[in-house]
Structures are given as C-alpha cells and as structure tokens.
C-alpha cells in the first residue's frame, strides 16, 4: 500500500507485552504503509491511553489479560468521566476465526469499513503465525541445547564416579538407554537428578 493512500492515516494501536512479536507487527504495519501506529508494551492505564490516542483499530494478543478491559468499552459509556468511541469487530466469522487461532484479536472503531481493516488483519494474522513458528523453533533449539548440557553433566558424573573415559561414559549412557527403551537425554536427566538428590 502506497504511503499516499488515505489509509496510512488510520490510527492503529498495538498492545503486546512480547517485545519480539511487537517489533514484527510494527515492522509489518510500517511496510504496508501505515504510519500512525502506536505500540504499548504494558497495559497500565489502558483506557486512558485509548482515550488520548483515539485509535481506529486496536490489536491485542490473546495472552494479554487486559483484553477484558477492552471488552468493557463495548458496554460502558462512562468508564472514565469522558466518552469513548464504541469499538466493535466488523470482521466476518472466518476472519475472526483466523485471528483467534493465530492468537490475536482486533477491535475496530464503530463505522469503519470492513475493507479498510482487512489488509491490517491479514498482515497481523500472517505475522502472528510467523512468530508462532519462530517461537516453536526457538523452543526446540533451547530444548536440544539443554539436553546436550544434561548429557555432558551425566558423562562427567560417570567419569568421576566410575573412573571411565569420556567415550566409555557416553557408551554406558547409550547402552542403558537402549536397554530401557528410553532416550539418552532422559537417562542422563535421571542420573543427574538422582545425584542431586543424594547430595542433599
């Protein structure tokens, strides 16, 4: 979308406590030509912020308990002693479903046309999916790293207590795992936990 497009003036508020995801969404909105974007990392005085910013669209991740604070705006004409524009979601059911499954929810100021919001929603949902994949990969890497550390620790214990060299220590772990039908990392974890227990 060209920056000259009138929609670049749409005021968008992004509420996300996760700094990486927040940056991804912010960059996505900037790439799409939206310039009036505000990001909030915490939800202190959320209603006050919304009053001052007067956004057209609010994007909030589903991990944020302050979603219920936004819900109140549907209902209450007098949350603070000033009026707040009513927010409703004009998306169709499939769009709402896609957003919820990706982990994000949108609130859209009453009267704003559906077509104007659609590119924002689609981009956000895509980036949330990308972030979810990134997080899953990161968890996997972290898990693998942790397992390697545990195996190293277990090897060290065996080397010290049984006088084995490193290769023999690993061989013992591997054979034990095979005999028990377990993963090497699990056998190593069991050994490390037992030793920790005995120390206490």
């Amino acid at each position: 979308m060209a920056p000259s497009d009138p929609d670049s003036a749409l005021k968008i508020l992004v509420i996300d406590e996760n700094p990486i995801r927040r940056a991804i969404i912010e960059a996505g909105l900037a790439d799409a030509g939206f310039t009036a974007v505000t990001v909030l990392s915490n939800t202190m005085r959320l209603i006050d912020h919304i009053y001052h910013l007067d956004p057209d669209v609010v994007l909030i991740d589903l991990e944020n308990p302050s979603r219920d604070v936004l819900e109140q705006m549907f209902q209450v004409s007098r949350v603070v002693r000033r009026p707040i524009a009513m927010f409703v979601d004009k998306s169709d059911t499939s769009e709402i479903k896609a957003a919820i499954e990706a982990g994000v929810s949108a609130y859209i100021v009453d009267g704003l046309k559906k077509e104007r919001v659609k590119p924002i929603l689609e981009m956000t949902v895509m980036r949330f999916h990308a972030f979810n994949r990134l997080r899953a990969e990161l968890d996997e890497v972290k898990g693998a790293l942790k397992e390697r550390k545990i195996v190293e620790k277990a090897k060290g214990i065996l080397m010290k207590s049984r006088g084995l060299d490193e290769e023999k220590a690993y061989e013992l772990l591997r054979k034990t795992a095979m005999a028990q039908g377990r993963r090497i990392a699990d056998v190593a974890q069991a050994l490390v936990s037992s030793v920790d227990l005995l120390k206490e």
Partner: protein
Amino acid sequence: MGIMAKGMNGGEAQEVHAGFIPLADCAPLVIASELGFDRAEGFKLVLHREVSWANIRDKLDVGSFDCAHMLAPMPIAAALGLGRAAGSIIAPMALSLNGNAITVSLALYDEMLRADERATLAGGMRAAKAVAAAVRARQEQGREPLTFGMVYPFSCHNYDLRYWLAAAGVDPDNDVNLIVVPPPLIADALKAGRVDGFCVGQPWNTVAVTEGKGVIVATKSELWTLSPEKVLGVREAWADRNPALVAGLIRALVAACRWLDEADNRREAARILAQPGYVGLAEEVIARPLTGTLICGGRQADVVDPDLVVFHRGFANFPWRSHALWLMTQMIRWGQVREPFDLKALAEQVFRTDLYRGAVAAMGVAVPAVDSKREGADAGSVFFGGEMFDPGAALVYLDRLVIRNAGTDLNAFSALNP
C-alpha cells in the same frame, strides 16, 4: 493413563476441549479430569487455561473449545448479541454458586470506619452504608469519586458490586467509577490506589488480604445466599451433534462437584488447584475460601461460612431459570441491553434444564420439580436487602428499583413480557 484414556468401546476416548480461567471455582473441570470422572463416562477432558473471559467466549465460539467454565451471564449476553457477536452458547448446568467477595483498600477501609466505626460488622449492609457515607463525604469535599474494579461487563461480579452499592443508595454509574481489572493485577491496583475496591472471585480477595493490600468487607454468600456464579457454557451446535457426550459431560462434572462438596475433600482440591497448570497460586490462599474460613484483614472478624463457594448441595448444579431471569434484570437495570426481548423465552433457550434433568436421571441425583423458584423467598435463598424476586414478575421487580439506568424504557419490555 494410556489404558484409562480408552473409551468404553476400546477405541481412543473422544476428547472434549474445555477452557477455564484460573480461579478457585474452575475446580469442577480440574477435578473431573484429575480424578478420572471424565474417563468413567468414556471421554477425555483436555483443559485449556485462559487469561481472559473474552478469550473463553471467542475460543468457544470458533470451536477451539467445546465447552468452558463461564460466568453465568455470558451465555445470556451471547444470545442477546451483546459484546462481540457469538454463536449460540447454552448452559446445561451450573458449576458453582457464590465464591466472590468485595475487598476495599486500606485507605477506603479507614474512610468507612470514620463514617461508621461498626462498619466491620458482618452481613454486608453495614459495610455498604459505610461506603455510601464515604462516597457522599467525597462528593461534599469535591474529591475524586471512588473507583471500583470488577472482571468483566457480563459478570456476576459486576452485578454483585452494583447490587451491593445500590442497596445502600449509591448509583454505580454516577456516584463512582467502575472499571475492569484482570484478577491477577487487582491486588496491585488496590495497593497503587488505581482502584479503591473490587469484586472478584477467589482466591484473589484472599491474595489481597494476605499481601496486606486490602480488607474483605462482604462476601457474595452474604449478599445473596446460594446465588448464581459459574456455569458450564457449551456451543449449542456442538451439543446438538453430540447429545450422548454432553450428557456424559454433565454427569462427570456433577460427580466432580459432588466430590468437591465433601468437606474432607476441599483441602485436597486446594492442593490440586495450586499446581502451576491450574490456578498456580499458594495452596493456602486457595484453601481458605474453599474450606470456608476467610481471614478478612483490618478489624474484620474472620468469616466462617461453609457456603463461601458451593459446588453441589442445594441443587447447586441445576441451571435455575430464575437465576437466568435475575441476571437479565441486571442487564436491563444497568443499561447493558435496551432492545426489548422476551425474558422467559430467552431463559428457556439458554438455561437448558431439560439437558440437565435428562443427564443426571441415570445417576440418582435429585432434581427440583420446577425450573424456576422465587428467589429470596426461603432460607436457602436470601437477599441481604430482604427483597424477593418473583421470576414470573421480573419487570415488576425492576420497576420497584429506585436506582437504575434512566435510559431504559420498561414499558417497551412489557409488550413482550405479558
């Protein structure tokens, strides 16, 4: 687990996905899953912990969940199209009664004591009048109005708090500010002075007292004994396709509720709920409201009340249509719904007593002979204001209320509610 998860026909048990909010009264779902009441009925509960009621509504709506731990007004709000539009949600049983409490900041507690040094007396009304005096004193001094927190617009907490304030002559829409604060943030909001008091479910009141940030001045069980709180919300389309499963789900949860109402089991329940995947707070703060002893802080006497939260006894699981009707009167009273509708028809559509009766008939659980009762009319159901709610004359009840939203035209409702 592998064997237990098999269904009665030897295949894998069907999974039922259920959302819950980490509160003491999510216990029926947690206990049904932990103690295997689900597997005894041939299905497997998969629990999803959520952080907001909006998530619960949306994930139930889009089919991420089949059912959920819900605030009793939520299925009614969905049917009325209030808030974000959602498909039909029905309540085939109630999960718990009571359970909430009203907590005030130490500063407001001092103001209340200055207004009435006996504000500490139990019962709720004396405390409400002391708050009313504090409200008036602030108005006379030109100070900022008090701000109260609750958890969701369509919650019993909202209506409990409003009912309590209005009973003492405080107009909750004009004399004070009411805001939503998520429960995990509410004790800190109290300490920081962003709210002066709140109504929330347990164990969050006890957390505020334990951390020295607040004083409990009233319990829901005092305001209205055996009053509605959480229901099982089920997506109607899913219930229609899976009638046997829904019946099994109701029976499993009723069995869990019956287990939970054995006084000897409440400690064990607190131990289970304390686990990080469930409520994830100290066992002791969960145990106090569950075992019926509440330390209230300040000069307040401890509240010893086995009815602080009720899971089964006294027909607690029966989805009383009179409860639904009372909740609808509150939505009208506070201007949440202006468009006239047929209250009785909506209660019948959402609070599915037929599904409850059908499901529990096989397990020998007693059911009431009627679907509605006059609330406040007997020892089992008492309003602290002494009034009575006749579900057959809901508009008459509304009309008698002095404090209510001025924009609502009750005559327009009369045409649809003869």
